[in-house]
């Protein structure tokens, strides 16, 4: 690999870089080729990372790691397959082919129904009050009769509006139901993929476990026989990286190796080591 840090160029399979560099920036440079937004600019020319690099390509003591998943990814990086793979490919294909779910109607039709109902109630009360006045005056007050007629007209208008709002709401509910049929189908396909992935992962982890445990026992400073999936994350990451194929250089910010050359030999992979 060739790694440029500011004006300096480092070349080789095992590079020791000064601890003053931000390891996150080194990782970005390894994964994308360059981290030039801050000083010093870092560029890396090396093999492109595989999926395993996302998991264990950057090893440090506070690494957040799901070791079984990472181990399964490591097994895949070595080209391992399982009896679930055909079904998995098929299920992923079906999921990818599933049509996009249409956008759901906005909540506004619910609000319109509620508002229209309130308005109808309000005007019904007005009509009742106006009618009461007309009846009390026994037809003697033409202004009251006029007000009653107005109120009845207004009520009839909002009742029409309310009916229209209910009809819109009904159509929205139907559209939403159709969208949910699609969502439900997609959820089924997603669950199927996830289920197959879980089963494949279990098979891979079972098969990889002996080699992984041997690698873990060999991690410098790791007591033999430690719980294989519950020990120090940097130790687990190193063992998984040794078992799998990182392709791109590993970035190490852990004090387990005396220098990059020792780490590269142990991992059998190119290494950028940040001096502690």
């Amino acid at each position, binding site marked *: 690999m060739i790694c440029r840090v500011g004006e300096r160029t480092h070349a080789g399979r095992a590079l020791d870089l000064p601890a003053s560099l931000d390891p996150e920036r080194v990782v970005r440079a390894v994964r994308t080729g360059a981290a030039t937004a801050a000083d010093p600019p870092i560029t890396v020319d090396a093999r492109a990372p595989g999926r395993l690099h996302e998991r264990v390509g950057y090893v440090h003591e506070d690494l957040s790691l799901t070791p079984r998943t990472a181990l399964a990814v490591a097994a895949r990086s070595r080209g391992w397959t399982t009896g679930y793979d055909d079904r998995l490919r098929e299920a992923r294909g079906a999921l990818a082919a599933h049509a996009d779910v249409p956008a*759901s109607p906005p*909540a506004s039709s619910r609000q319109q129904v509620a508002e229209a109902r309130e308005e109808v109630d309000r005007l019904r009360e007005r009509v009742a009050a106006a009618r009461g006045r007309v009846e009390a005056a026994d037809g003697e007050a033409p202004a009251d009769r006029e007000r009653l007629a107005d109120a009845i007209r207004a009520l009839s208008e909002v009742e029409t509006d309310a009916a229209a709002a209910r009809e819109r709401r009904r159509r929205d509910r139907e559209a939403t139901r159709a969208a*949910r049929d699609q*969502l439900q189908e997609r*959820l089924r396909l997603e669950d199927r993929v996830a289920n197959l992935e879980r089963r494949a992962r279990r098979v891979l982890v079972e098969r990889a476990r002996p080699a992984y445990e041997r690698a873990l026992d060999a991690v410098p400073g790791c007591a033999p026989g430690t719980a294989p999936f519950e020990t120090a994350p940097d130790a687990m990451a190193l063992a998984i990286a040794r078992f799998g194929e990182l392709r791109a250089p590993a970035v190490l910010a852990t004090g387990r190796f005396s220098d990059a050359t020792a780490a590269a030999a142990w991992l059998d992979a190119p290494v950028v080591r940040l001096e502690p």
Partner: protein
Amino acid sequence: MLLVITYSTAARQALRNLCNAHEESVVRRFGRAALLADTEFAGFQAVRLREQFGAAVQVERTRPFNEFETLREPVREAARAYADRETPALPYAKFAAGTDHPAPADLKESEL
């Protein structure tokens, strides 16, 4: 009560988290649905989920079903008689044919 049904992995997870955090508000949990107690808190959570996940969250308000209030007597009677039938394999349409029990088509057309 509020019946909350989810239709995506993210919405399902959010509902699970909600149920785990507020067990006292949960009447019953199903795979990707839950029945929440009839409180403003449940309403608040339902609206929050709906805002966040759109059509992937369905909210229905349920109420207790009292057949003595909701169903007419012949329907209740038919249900009891059918539950008590002697031949378990007999479909209701055949069971009702030629009797006073309501026909399934009539039942399907009559709203509660």
